[in-house]
């Protein structure tokens, strides 16, 4: 059976990549990062994501999702954990998106990366500890991807399931 390619199960040693990513990105996207208010990554206001029209679809999706009232972009897309990790991820995304946006060399529809899929998953689990306490107990090794069933939670944009 085809396994969910976005399964957080296969998490990466992404921290290693971080350093590299930084090096490459800093120079290239400094301008965009500033101009496009890439610092919006450090804000919790969804509208800050909207500084990029590219994000319009997901904003619309979120705007119509069950979580509009309970979670903003960063509640799902940045780690809740310690600040170091939090700002690392924000940094990576800020630069990555700024870069891609500048070069325009990304394919649409946009697809979440494994790193961010894992971040989102962990945030689901964190907010829903109680709900998933039983199904998670067998979970340590291999969690079931939440969005495989709850594909509409973050963004009411999936026509159907996973």
């Amino acid at each position, binding site marked *: 059976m085809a396994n969910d390619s976005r399964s957080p199960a296969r998490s990466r040693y992404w921290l290693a990549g971080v350093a590299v990513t930084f090096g490459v990105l800093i120079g290239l996207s400094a301008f965009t990062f500033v101009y496009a208010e890439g610092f919006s990554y450090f804000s919790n206001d969804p509208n800050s994501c909207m500084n990029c029209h590219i994000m319009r679809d997901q904003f619309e999706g979120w705007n119509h999702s069950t979580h509009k009232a309970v979670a903003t972009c960063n509640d799902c897309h940045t780690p809740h954990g310690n600040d170091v990790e939090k700002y690392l991820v924000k940094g990576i995304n800020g630069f990555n998106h700024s870069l891609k946006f500048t070069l325009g060399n990304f394919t649409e529809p946009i697809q979440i990366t494994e790193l961010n899929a894992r971040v989102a998953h962990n945030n689901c689990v964190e907010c829903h*500890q*109680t*709900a998933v306490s039983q199904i998670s107990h067998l979970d340590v090794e291999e969690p079931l991807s939440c969005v*495989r069933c709850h594909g509409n939670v973050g963004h009411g944009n999936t026509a159907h399931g996973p």
Partner: protein
Amino acid sequence: NIQNKKAEATQYPLQVVEIPADELDPAVWGKNFPSQYDSFMQTATNYGPTPYGGSEPYSKLEKYPAMKRLWAGYAFSVDHNEERGHQYALQDQLETERIVVKEQPAACANCHAADAPRLIEQMGWEEFNHTPYNDIKSELHTGTSCADCHDPETMELRITRQAFVEAMAKQGVDVTTASRQEMRSYVCSQCHVEYYFAGENKVLTFPWEKGMNIDDIDAYYQENGFIDWVHKETGGGMIKAQHPETELFSTGLHAASGVACADCHMPYIREGSVKTSDHWLRSPLVNINGSCQTCHNYSEAELKARVDTIQARTAELLRQSEAALLDTIDAIVAAKDAGASEEELAEIYALHRSAQLRWDFISSENSTGFHSPQEAARVLADSIDMARQAQIAAIMLLNEKNSQEQAVAPQQLVNNPD
């Protein structure tokens, strides 16, 4: 309120009792896992029929009279009902006429008794399978048990049935390396599969060596020459298919999308604020909300309508296939009566066998096509085509015989012209 909820959450998993490695009684396991136990016990409840499934164990032979004749000479033509909840797994086997009209091997117990693994360990795999069912009956106490699917220590899913392990190995799959999501289907695929009893020792075997779709399975049976019984009317060798849920499902889109049996048949339910897997294994049509709507954002009515459409198309083709197969049997019988020899009938028998195996593959599969809608229709189209071709061949043979007769005694014809 919050406090209780947080409490519930942290309590779990709380081991009230230590579960012995050989414990089969669900009640004991239930002490640690009351909610799963309660829902599992619900499988004794009759929630009534759905359009094509459900838990009302009506006689299929009465609802679809064609079956009696298609299975003529085989135990299934005597007693075959719509299946029901897991609580009846052992009882229904003990009570079926099929173990009365024919002496059955203990191999039958593999999927109907949680005691099977223990007995196999004691008696040995081959020995267990060929022992007469009636001789070990007294050893069977529990139908399905938690132990069939769970490791009592870790509660992780586990495979307990040897036939499945071997069948997967033959396909090059090592089940011990299965992912959690795969296990959510594998535990079911230990029993919800087509099977046969191989050789003298009646060893329970799944015919998957060439692949899982019906064409592979037919090719496999043709190669090893296995037949289940000889048809009472035609005298041809026949093969019966049983509950190939795993095989049909594997050809569908849900499988391709990584959806597991448990996703639909054991959806999560809320106990207070905690999610648990609904162990009331049943038709998803009585719980569309839990089984489908999380993934499919449509109204219950809309989703029901989609299943209805798929199943109605399948049911229509099943009836057409039955009509074609009955015509085939008529034609073969007529040819035989006109003196056709076994040699002359050999190819026709083979066509009839392949045609009826395909009908049975979809008919005995319990989702009425839902598990793989297009494939189900394709298989029935093949069944109809093969049945009609067998009918045509038999008619040709009949004419040959008649004209030979006429050649010998032309008078007859002249004497009674129509």
